[in-house]
Protein backbone atom coordinates (compact mmCIF):
# COMPACT_ATOMS: atom_id res chain seq x y z
CA UNK A 1 0.00 0.00 0.00
CA UNK A 2 2.67 2.45 1.05
CA UNK A 3 4.79 1.57 -1.91
CA UNK A 4 1.96 2.38 -4.32
CA UNK A 5 1.36 5.76 -2.71
CA UNK A 6 5.01 6.71 -3.12
CA UNK A 7 4.83 5.69 -6.75
CA UNK A 8 1.80 7.91 -7.29
CA UNK A 9 3.54 10.86 -5.60
CA UNK A 10 6.61 10.35 -7.78
CA UNK A 11 4.41 10.24 -10.86
CA UNK A 12 2.65 13.51 -10.00
CA UNK A 13 5.95 15.22 -9.21
CA UNK A 14 7.55 14.12 -12.48
CA UNK A 15 4.56 15.45 -14.39
CA UNK A 16 4.91 18.80 -12.59
CA UNK A 17 8.61 18.96 -13.37
CA UNK A 18 7.90 18.26 -17.02
CA UNK A 19 5.24 20.99 -17.20
CA UNK A 20 7.58 23.55 -15.62
CA UNK A 21 10.67 22.43 -17.49
CA UNK A 22 9.23 22.29 -21.02
CA UNK A 23 9.10 26.09 -21.56
CA UNK A 24 12.64 26.32 -20.25
CA UNK A 25 13.84 23.83 -22.84
CA UNK A 26 11.93 25.70 -25.54
CA UNK A 27 13.46 28.99 -24.45
CA UNK A 28 16.96 27.56 -24.62
CA UNK A 29 16.29 26.16 -28.07
CA UNK A 30 15.03 29.55 -29.21
CA UNK A 31 18.14 31.28 -27.90
CA UNK A 32 20.26 28.90 -29.96
CA UNK A 33 18.12 29.46 -33.04
CA UNK A 34 19.23 33.05 -33.34
CA UNK A 35 17.73 36.49 -33.34
CA UNK A 36 14.06 37.24 -33.76
CA UNK A 37 13.98 40.40 -35.88
CA UNK A 38 10.60 42.12 -35.91
CA UNK A 39 9.67 44.65 -38.56
CA UNK A 40 7.27 47.48 -37.89
CA UNK A 41 6.43 50.67 -39.77
CA UNK A 42 9.01 53.38 -39.13
CA UNK A 43 6.37 55.47 -37.31
CA UNK A 44 5.82 52.74 -34.76
CA UNK A 45 9.38 51.62 -34.21
CA UNK A 46 11.02 50.20 -37.31
CA UNK A 47 13.22 47.18 -36.70
CA UNK A 48 13.54 45.53 -33.30
CA UNK A 49 16.42 45.07 -32.57
CA UNK A 50 17.98 47.77 -34.72
CA UNK A 51 21.59 46.82 -34.05
CA UNK A 52 22.95 43.36 -34.58
CA UNK A 53 26.47 42.11 -34.34
CA UNK A 54 28.23 38.98 -35.49
CA UNK A 55 31.79 37.82 -35.96
CA UNK A 56 33.39 37.38 -39.36
CA UNK A 57 32.73 33.91 -40.75
CA UNK A 58 30.08 33.06 -38.17
CA UNK A 59 26.49 32.43 -39.14
CA UNK A 60 23.90 35.00 -38.09
CA UNK A 61 20.60 33.19 -37.72
CA UNK A 62 17.74 35.56 -38.30
CA UNK A 63 14.08 34.80 -37.78
CA UNK A 64 12.17 37.56 -39.47
CA UNK A 65 8.60 38.54 -38.82
CA UNK A 66 6.37 41.56 -39.25
CA UNK A 67 4.05 43.13 -36.71
CA UNK A 68 1.88 45.08 -39.14
CA UNK A 69 2.20 45.06 -42.93
CA UNK A 70 4.36 43.47 -45.60
CA UNK A 71 8.02 44.36 -45.17
CA UNK A 72 11.14 43.08 -46.82
CA UNK A 73 14.68 42.53 -45.61
CA UNK A 74 17.73 43.42 -47.66
CA UNK A 75 21.31 44.38 -47.02
CA UNK A 76 22.74 47.52 -48.59
CA UNK A 77 25.61 47.38 -51.08
CA UNK A 78 25.24 43.62 -51.48
CA UNK A 79 23.74 41.41 -54.14
CA UNK A 80 21.59 39.42 -51.72
CA UNK A 81 18.03 39.30 -53.08
CA UNK A 82 15.47 40.91 -50.73
CA UNK A 83 13.43 38.57 -48.54
CA UNK A 84 9.74 39.35 -48.00
CA UNK A 85 8.51 39.40 -44.42
CA UNK A 86 4.85 38.64 -43.92
CA UNK A 87 2.85 39.47 -40.82
CA UNK A 88 2.18 36.40 -38.71
CA UNK A 89 4.84 34.33 -40.44
CA UNK A 90 8.44 33.60 -39.58
CA UNK A 91 10.99 33.71 -42.36
CA UNK A 92 14.34 32.20 -41.55
CA UNK A 93 17.52 33.58 -42.96
CA UNK A 94 21.15 32.63 -42.38
CA UNK A 95 23.81 35.20 -43.11
CA UNK A 96 27.57 34.84 -43.19
CA UNK A 97 29.82 37.86 -43.63
CA UNK A 98 33.35 37.42 -44.84
CA UNK A 99 34.52 40.98 -44.26
CA UNK A 100 34.32 43.09 -41.13
CA UNK A 101 32.48 46.39 -41.20
CA UNK A 102 29.11 47.98 -40.71
CA UNK A 103 26.33 46.78 -42.98
CA UNK A 104 23.00 48.54 -43.29
CA UNK A 105 19.92 46.40 -43.50
CA UNK A 106 16.73 47.99 -44.74
CA UNK A 107 13.17 47.44 -45.89
CA UNK A 108 12.54 47.30 -49.64
CA UNK A 109 8.74 47.34 -49.62
CA UNK A 110 6.93 50.66 -49.35
CA UNK A 111 5.39 50.28 -45.90
CA UNK A 112 4.56 53.94 -45.22
CA UNK A 113 5.71 57.39 -46.28
CA UNK A 114 8.64 56.96 -43.89
CA UNK A 115 9.45 53.52 -45.27
CA UNK A 116 13.06 54.48 -46.00
CA UNK A 117 13.67 55.29 -42.34
CA UNK A 118 13.27 51.61 -41.59
CA UNK A 119 16.95 50.76 -41.40
CA UNK A 120 19.28 49.01 -39.03
CA UNK A 121 22.93 48.12 -38.72
CA UNK A 122 24.74 44.81 -38.58
CA UNK A 123 28.19 45.22 -37.14
CA UNK A 124 30.57 42.54 -38.30
CA UNK A 125 33.57 42.30 -35.98
CA UNK A 126 36.72 40.30 -36.20
CA UNK A 127 40.07 40.30 -37.91
CA UNK A 128 39.44 39.12 -41.45
CA UNK A 129 40.60 41.05 -44.44
CA UNK A 130 40.01 44.71 -44.00
CA UNK A 131 37.69 45.82 -46.79
CA UNK A 132 39.17 47.97 -49.52
CA UNK A 133 39.18 51.54 -48.25
CA UNK A 134 36.24 53.39 -49.78
CA UNK A 135 37.28 56.05 -52.18
CA UNK A 136 35.65 59.37 -51.41
CA UNK A 137 32.85 59.97 -53.89
CA UNK A 138 33.29 62.20 -56.90
CA UNK A 139 31.18 65.05 -55.56
CA UNK A 140 33.39 65.27 -52.49
CA UNK A 141 36.56 65.29 -54.60
CA UNK A 142 35.13 68.06 -56.75
CA UNK A 143 34.09 70.03 -53.66
CA UNK A 144 30.49 70.56 -54.77
CA UNK A 145 28.23 72.37 -52.32
CA UNK A 146 25.09 70.28 -52.58
CA UNK A 147 22.86 72.84 -50.90
CA UNK A 148 23.60 75.83 -53.13
CA UNK A 149 20.71 76.71 -55.40
CA UNK A 150 21.05 75.96 -59.09
CA UNK A 151 19.03 77.41 -61.90
CA UNK A 152 19.50 78.23 -65.55
CA UNK A 153 17.50 80.37 -67.92
CA UNK A 154 19.22 78.79 -70.94
CA UNK A 155 16.94 75.91 -71.84
CA UNK A 156 16.35 74.17 -75.17
CA UNK A 157 13.15 74.75 -77.15
CA UNK A 158 12.39 71.05 -77.29
CA UNK A 159 13.78 67.95 -75.60
CA UNK A 160 17.28 67.45 -77.07
CA UNK A 161 17.63 64.17 -78.93
CA UNK A 162 20.86 62.20 -79.25
CA UNK A 163 19.88 60.78 -82.66
CA UNK A 164 19.47 64.29 -84.08
CA UNK A 165 22.81 65.39 -82.66
CA UNK A 166 24.61 62.42 -84.21
CA UNK A 167 24.90 64.27 -87.55
CA UNK A 168 27.26 66.88 -86.16
CA UNK A 169 29.53 64.69 -84.07
CA UNK A 170 32.47 65.02 -86.51
CA UNK A 171 32.54 68.75 -85.69
CA UNK A 172 33.15 68.09 -81.98
CA UNK A 173 36.61 68.92 -80.63
CA UNK A 174 38.32 65.91 -79.02
CA UNK A 175 38.38 67.60 -75.62
CA UNK A 176 34.60 67.82 -75.66
CA UNK A 177 34.21 64.04 -75.57
CA UNK A 178 34.73 61.43 -72.89
CA UNK A 179 33.37 60.55 -69.50
CA UNK A 180 35.11 63.44 -67.71
CA UNK A 181 32.69 65.88 -69.33
CA UNK A 182 29.64 63.74 -68.57
CA UNK A 183 30.58 63.23 -64.95
CA UNK A 184 31.68 66.67 -63.93
CA UNK A 185 29.93 69.24 -66.13
CA UNK A 186 26.39 70.51 -66.01
CA UNK A 187 24.73 70.27 -69.44
CA UNK A 188 24.19 74.00 -69.59
CA UNK A 189 27.90 74.73 -68.95
CA UNK A 190 28.84 72.18 -71.57
CA UNK A 191 26.38 73.74 -74.00
CA UNK A 192 27.86 77.20 -73.44
CA UNK A 193 31.37 75.84 -74.05
CA UNK A 194 30.21 74.27 -77.33
CA UNK A 195 28.35 77.44 -78.29
CA UNK A 196 31.58 79.44 -78.10
CA UNK A 197 33.43 76.91 -80.28
CA UNK A 198 34.03 78.37 -83.76
CA UNK A 199 33.66 74.99 -85.49
CA UNK A 200 30.06 74.85 -84.31
CA UNK A 201 29.20 78.52 -84.94
CA UNK A 202 26.91 77.71 -87.88
CA UNK A 203 24.64 75.39 -85.82
CA UNK A 204 21.44 76.59 -84.21
CA UNK A 205 21.04 76.58 -80.42
CA UNK A 206 18.79 73.53 -80.60
CA UNK A 207 21.30 71.63 -82.75
CA UNK A 208 24.01 72.29 -80.18
CA UNK A 209 21.65 70.95 -77.49
CA UNK A 210 21.12 67.83 -79.62
CA UNK A 211 24.88 67.45 -79.82
CA UNK A 212 25.13 67.69 -76.02
CA UNK A 213 22.43 65.00 -75.78
CA UNK A 214 24.52 62.77 -78.05
CA UNK A 215 27.57 63.19 -75.82
CA UNK A 216 25.44 62.28 -72.79
CA UNK A 217 24.06 59.25 -74.64
CA UNK A 218 27.57 58.12 -75.61
CA UNK A 219 28.37 57.88 -71.89
CA UNK A 220 25.44 55.66 -71.03
CA UNK A 221 24.77 52.06 -72.00
CA UNK A 222 21.30 50.63 -72.72
CA UNK A 223 21.57 48.00 -70.00
CA UNK A 224 22.68 50.73 -67.58
CA UNK A 225 19.53 52.71 -68.42
CA UNK A 226 17.45 49.60 -67.91
CA UNK A 227 18.98 48.98 -64.48
CA UNK A 228 18.48 52.64 -63.62
CA UNK A 229 14.84 52.48 -64.65
CA UNK A 230 14.33 49.47 -62.41
CA UNK A 231 15.97 51.19 -59.44
CA UNK A 232 13.97 54.35 -60.09
CA UNK A 233 10.64 52.49 -60.16
CA UNK A 234 11.34 50.67 -56.92
CA UNK A 235 13.00 53.41 -54.89
CA UNK A 236 12.15 56.83 -56.34
CA UNK A 237 8.85 56.78 -58.23
CA UNK A 238 6.65 56.81 -55.13
CA UNK A 239 7.68 60.42 -54.48
CA UNK A 240 9.27 61.72 -57.69
CA UNK A 241 6.57 60.20 -59.90
CA UNK A 242 6.66 57.49 -62.51
CA UNK A 243 7.33 60.07 -65.22
CA UNK A 244 9.78 62.09 -63.12
CA UNK A 245 7.47 65.06 -62.70
CA UNK A 246 7.78 65.22 -58.91
CA UNK A 247 4.16 64.10 -58.70
CA UNK A 248 4.36 60.66 -57.10
CA UNK A 249 1.67 59.32 -54.82
CA UNK A 250 3.40 60.76 -51.73
CA UNK A 251 4.18 64.18 -53.24
CA UNK A 252 1.11 65.91 -51.81
CA UNK A 253 1.84 64.63 -48.30
CA UNK A 254 5.47 65.70 -48.50
CA UNK A 255 4.45 69.21 -49.45
CA UNK A 256 2.65 69.79 -46.19
CA UNK A 257 4.16 71.75 -43.37
CA UNK A 258 5.18 70.07 -40.16
CA UNK A 259 1.94 68.95 -38.49
CA UNK A 260 3.55 69.12 -35.06
CA UNK A 261 4.38 72.83 -35.48
CA UNK A 262 7.95 72.25 -34.45
CA UNK A 263 9.72 75.50 -35.12
CA UNK A 264 13.05 76.91 -34.10
CA UNK A 265 13.97 80.55 -34.13
CA UNK A 266 17.59 81.48 -34.58
CA UNK A 267 18.63 84.49 -32.50
CA UNK A 268 19.01 87.42 -34.87
CA UNK A 269 17.72 85.38 -37.77
CA UNK A 270 14.39 85.49 -39.48
CA UNK A 271 11.60 83.79 -37.57
CA UNK A 272 11.19 80.19 -38.61
CA UNK A 273 14.49 80.39 -40.43
CA UNK A 274 14.97 76.70 -39.76
CA UNK A 275 11.56 75.13 -39.48
CA UNK A 276 11.70 72.08 -37.33
CA UNK A 277 15.36 71.41 -37.90
CA UNK A 278 15.28 69.55 -34.62
CA UNK A 279 12.37 67.28 -35.32
CA UNK A 280 13.28 66.70 -38.94
CA UNK A 281 9.60 66.30 -39.61
CA UNK A 282 9.37 69.05 -42.18
CA UNK A 283 9.53 67.86 -45.75
CA UNK A 284 9.47 69.56 -49.12
CA UNK A 285 7.94 68.76 -52.46
CA UNK A 286 10.00 66.20 -54.42
CA UNK A 287 12.21 67.49 -57.21
CA UNK A 288 10.72 67.65 -60.69
CA UNK A 289 13.24 65.89 -62.96
CA UNK A 290 11.43 67.10 -66.06
CA UNK A 291 12.18 70.75 -65.24
CA UNK A 292 15.05 71.77 -67.55
CA UNK A 293 15.76 75.02 -65.69
CA UNK A 294 16.88 72.94 -62.71
CA UNK A 295 18.14 69.68 -64.18
CA UNK A 296 20.30 71.14 -66.96
CA UNK A 297 22.21 73.18 -64.38
CA UNK A 298 23.23 70.04 -62.48
CA UNK A 299 26.23 67.83 -63.11
CA UNK A 300 26.16 64.05 -62.73
CA UNK A 301 28.55 64.40 -59.79
CA UNK A 302 26.09 66.69 -58.06
CA UNK A 303 23.26 64.21 -58.63
CA UNK A 304 25.50 61.53 -57.14
CA UNK A 305 25.95 63.70 -54.06
CA UNK A 306 22.23 64.26 -53.73
CA UNK A 307 21.54 60.55 -53.94
CA UNK A 308 24.33 59.44 -51.61
CA UNK A 309 23.85 62.10 -48.97
CA UNK A 310 20.11 62.65 -49.28
CA UNK A 311 18.16 65.84 -48.89
CA UNK A 312 19.03 66.68 -45.27
CA UNK A 313 15.67 67.72 -43.85
CA UNK A 314 13.64 67.61 -47.05
CA UNK A 315 12.42 64.03 -46.70
CA UNK A 316 14.82 62.73 -49.36
CA UNK A 317 16.52 59.56 -48.10
CA UNK A 318 20.28 59.01 -48.12
CA UNK A 319 21.23 56.09 -50.30
CA UNK A 320 24.96 55.96 -49.55
CA UNK A 321 24.78 52.79 -47.44
CA UNK A 322 22.30 51.15 -49.85
CA UNK A 323 23.36 51.62 -53.47
CA UNK A 324 26.59 50.35 -54.92
CA UNK A 325 28.70 52.69 -57.03
CA UNK A 326 27.46 51.19 -60.29
CA UNK A 327 23.82 51.31 -59.15
CA UNK A 328 24.15 55.02 -58.38
CA UNK A 329 25.60 55.77 -61.82
CA UNK A 330 22.91 53.66 -63.51
CA UNK A 331 20.26 55.65 -61.70
CA UNK A 332 21.87 58.96 -62.71
CA UNK A 333 22.01 57.81 -66.33
CA UNK A 334 18.30 57.08 -66.15
CA UNK A 335 17.58 60.50 -64.60
CA UNK A 336 19.07 62.13 -67.71
CA UNK A 337 16.38 60.50 -69.86
CA UNK A 338 13.89 62.95 -68.35
CA UNK A 339 15.86 65.75 -70.06
CA UNK A 340 17.43 64.07 -73.07
CA UNK A 341 16.13 61.61 -75.62
CA UNK A 342 19.02 59.13 -75.34
CA UNK A 343 17.49 56.44 -77.53
CA UNK A 344 17.74 55.53 -81.18
CA UNK A 345 15.95 57.44 -83.93
CA UNK A 346 12.25 56.57 -83.61
Amino acid at each position, binding site marked *: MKHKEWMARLFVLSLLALALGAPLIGWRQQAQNGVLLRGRMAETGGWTPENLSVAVGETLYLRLTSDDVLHSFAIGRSDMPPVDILPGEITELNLVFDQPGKYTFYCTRWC*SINHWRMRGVIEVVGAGQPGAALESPLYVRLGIDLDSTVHTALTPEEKPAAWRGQEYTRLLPAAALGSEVYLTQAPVDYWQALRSTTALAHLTDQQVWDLAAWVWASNTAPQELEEGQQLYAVNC*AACHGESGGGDGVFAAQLDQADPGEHTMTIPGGAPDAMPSAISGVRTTRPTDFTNPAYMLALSSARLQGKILRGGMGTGMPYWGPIFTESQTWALIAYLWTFQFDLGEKP
Partner: protein
Amino acid sequence: MKNRYWIVWMAVALLVMFAPLPTRAAPPQERFYRVEASQFEYRPAILKANPGDRVTIELAALDVVHGLAIDGYNLETTAEPGQPARLTFTADRSGAFRLRCTMTCGNLHPFMIGKLNVGDNQLLWRASGLAFLAALAGAASRPGREGLASILQAWRRQR
Protein backbone atom coordinates in the same frame (compact mmCIF):
# COMPACT_ATOMS: atom_id res chain seq x y z
CA MET B 1 -60.62 25.02 -53.81
CA LYS B 2 -58.06 26.90 -51.67
CA ASN B 3 -55.59 24.04 -51.76
CA ARG B 4 -55.13 24.24 -55.49
CA TYR B 5 -53.83 27.79 -55.54
CA TRP B 6 -50.41 26.85 -54.16
CA ILE B 7 -49.58 25.37 -57.56
CA VAL B 8 -50.23 28.73 -59.17
CA TRP B 9 -48.13 30.54 -56.55
CA MET B 10 -45.26 28.12 -57.06
CA ALA B 11 -45.45 28.47 -60.83
CA VAL B 12 -45.32 32.24 -60.58
CA ALA B 13 -42.44 32.02 -58.09
CA LEU B 14 -40.47 29.76 -60.45
CA LEU B 15 -41.16 32.17 -63.28
CA VAL B 16 -39.87 35.08 -61.20
CA MET B 17 -36.78 33.12 -60.30
CA PHE B 18 -35.78 31.66 -63.64
CA ALA B 19 -37.50 33.52 -66.46
CA PRO B 20 -34.88 35.11 -68.74
CA LEU B 21 -35.00 38.87 -68.39
CA PRO B 22 -34.60 41.03 -71.47
CA THR B 23 -30.97 42.21 -71.49
CA ARG B 24 -29.91 45.45 -73.03
CA ALA B 25 -27.56 44.24 -75.70
CA ALA B 26 -24.67 46.69 -75.66
CA PRO B 27 -21.78 46.16 -78.07
CA PRO B 28 -18.63 45.07 -76.19
CA GLN B 29 -16.32 47.95 -75.42
CA GLU B 30 -12.98 48.75 -73.83
CA ARG B 31 -13.21 49.94 -70.26
CA PHE B 32 -10.39 51.42 -68.23
CA TYR B 33 -10.51 51.89 -64.48
CA ARG B 34 -7.77 53.40 -62.36
CA VAL B 35 -8.36 52.08 -58.88
CA GLU B 36 -6.50 53.91 -56.15
CA ALA B 37 -5.87 51.74 -53.14
CA SER B 38 -5.16 53.22 -49.74
CA GLN B 39 -5.69 52.05 -46.19
CA PHE B 40 -8.37 50.60 -46.21
CA GLU B 41 -10.38 51.33 -49.32
CA TYR B 42 -10.46 51.18 -53.08
CA ARG B 43 -11.40 54.27 -55.00
CA PRO B 44 -13.63 53.73 -56.91
CA ALA B 45 -14.86 50.72 -54.95
CA ILE B 46 -17.62 49.70 -57.36
CA LEU B 47 -16.68 48.94 -60.97
CA LYS B 48 -19.24 48.33 -63.69
CA ALA B 49 -19.00 46.50 -66.97
CA ASN B 50 -21.28 44.86 -69.48
CA PRO B 51 -20.84 41.18 -70.29
CA GLY B 52 -18.22 40.79 -73.01
CA ASP B 53 -16.42 44.06 -72.27
CA ARG B 54 -12.64 44.16 -72.23
CA VAL B 55 -11.79 45.59 -68.81
CA THR B 56 -8.43 47.02 -67.79
CA ILE B 57 -7.87 47.83 -64.14
CA GLU B 58 -4.85 49.87 -63.15
CA LEU B 59 -4.17 49.41 -59.46
CA ALA B 60 -2.22 52.27 -57.86
CA ALA B 61 -1.19 52.02 -54.22
CA LEU B 62 -1.11 55.33 -52.36
CA ASP B 63 0.46 54.38 -49.05
CA VAL B 64 1.56 50.77 -48.58
CA VAL B 65 1.67 47.65 -50.73
CA HIS B 66 -1.85 46.63 -51.68
CA GLY B 67 -3.23 43.80 -53.76
CA LEU B 68 -6.36 43.17 -55.76
CA ALA B 69 -8.10 39.89 -56.36
CA ILE B 70 -11.47 39.37 -58.04
CA ASP B 71 -13.51 36.49 -56.67
CA GLY B 72 -14.85 34.29 -59.43
CA TYR B 73 -12.44 35.57 -62.04
CA ASN B 74 -9.24 34.05 -60.68
CA LEU B 75 -7.27 37.27 -61.16
CA GLU B 76 -4.73 38.73 -58.81
CA THR B 77 -2.14 41.47 -58.74
CA THR B 78 -0.20 43.60 -56.29
CA ALA B 79 0.96 47.20 -56.53
CA GLU B 80 3.57 49.16 -54.62
CA PRO B 81 3.52 52.94 -54.30
CA GLY B 82 5.15 54.24 -57.47
CA GLN B 83 4.67 50.94 -59.30
CA PRO B 84 1.10 50.58 -60.53
CA ALA B 85 -0.01 47.17 -61.77
CA ARG B 86 -2.51 46.33 -64.49
CA LEU B 87 -5.06 43.60 -64.95
CA THR B 88 -6.75 43.08 -68.32
CA PHE B 89 -9.53 40.57 -68.74
CA THR B 90 -12.79 39.94 -70.58
CA ALA B 91 -15.85 40.23 -68.38
CA ASP B 92 -17.35 36.95 -69.60
CA ARG B 93 -19.18 36.03 -66.41
CA SER B 94 -22.08 38.20 -65.35
CA GLY B 95 -22.97 38.93 -61.77
CA ALA B 96 -21.49 40.79 -58.83
CA PHE B 97 -17.95 39.86 -57.81
CA ARG B 98 -16.05 40.80 -54.69
CA LEU B 99 -12.76 42.67 -54.93
CA ARG B 100 -10.35 41.95 -52.11
CA CYS B 101 -6.96 43.17 -51.01
CA THR B 102 -4.43 40.34 -51.06
CA MET B 103 -1.59 41.96 -49.14
CA THR B 104 -1.83 42.41 -45.40
CA CYS B 105 -1.95 46.20 -45.41
CA GLY B 106 -2.77 46.93 -41.78
CA ASN B 107 -5.20 46.05 -39.04
CA LEU B 108 -8.35 46.64 -41.09
CA HIS B 109 -7.01 44.79 -44.11
CA PRO B 110 -9.81 42.14 -44.10
CA PHE B 111 -12.35 44.92 -44.60
CA MET B 112 -10.67 46.34 -47.67
CA ILE B 113 -13.14 45.26 -50.30
CA GLY B 114 -14.85 46.45 -53.46
CA LYS B 115 -17.21 45.11 -56.07
CA LEU B 116 -17.24 44.40 -59.78
CA ASN B 117 -20.70 44.41 -61.33
CA VAL B 118 -20.93 42.69 -64.68
CA GLY B 119 -24.29 43.30 -66.34
CA ASP B 120 -27.55 44.22 -64.62
CA ASN B 121 -28.10 43.16 -61.07
CA GLN B 122 -30.77 40.56 -61.89
CA LEU B 123 -30.56 39.02 -58.44
CA LEU B 124 -31.94 42.21 -56.93
CA TRP B 125 -34.94 42.30 -59.30
CA ARG B 126 -35.72 38.64 -58.84
CA ALA B 127 -35.44 38.87 -55.06
CA SER B 128 -37.75 41.92 -55.05
CA GLY B 129 -40.26 40.04 -57.22
CA LEU B 130 -40.20 37.05 -54.88
CA ALA B 131 -40.67 39.27 -51.84
CA PHE B 132 -43.66 40.95 -53.47
CA LEU B 133 -45.12 37.58 -54.40
CA ALA B 134 -44.68 36.32 -50.84
CA ALA B 135 -46.51 39.37 -49.48
CA LEU B 136 -49.33 38.85 -51.96
CA ALA B 137 -49.63 35.18 -51.08
CA GLY B 138 -49.65 36.04 -47.40
CA ALA B 139 -52.43 38.59 -47.88
CA ALA B 140 -54.43 36.16 -49.98
CA SER B 141 -54.32 33.35 -47.44
CA ARG B 142 -55.51 35.33 -44.45
CA PRO B 143 -58.16 33.43 -42.47
CA GLY B 144 -61.69 34.25 -43.68
CA ARG B 145 -60.63 34.89 -47.24
CA GLU B 146 -60.57 32.38 -50.05
CA GLY B 147 -57.33 32.84 -51.73
CA LEU B 148 -56.59 34.78 -54.88
CA ALA B 149 -60.27 34.78 -55.94
CA SER B 150 -61.27 36.82 -52.89
CA ILE B 151 -58.61 39.46 -53.67
CA LEU B 152 -59.92 39.79 -57.20
CA GLN B 153 -63.54 39.98 -55.93
CA ALA B 154 -62.63 42.66 -53.40
CA TRP B 155 -60.86 44.61 -56.10
CA ARG B 156 -63.91 44.38 -58.45
CA ARG B 157 -66.26 45.42 -55.69
CA GLN B 158 -64.21 48.52 -55.03
CA ARG B 159 -64.43 49.55 -58.65
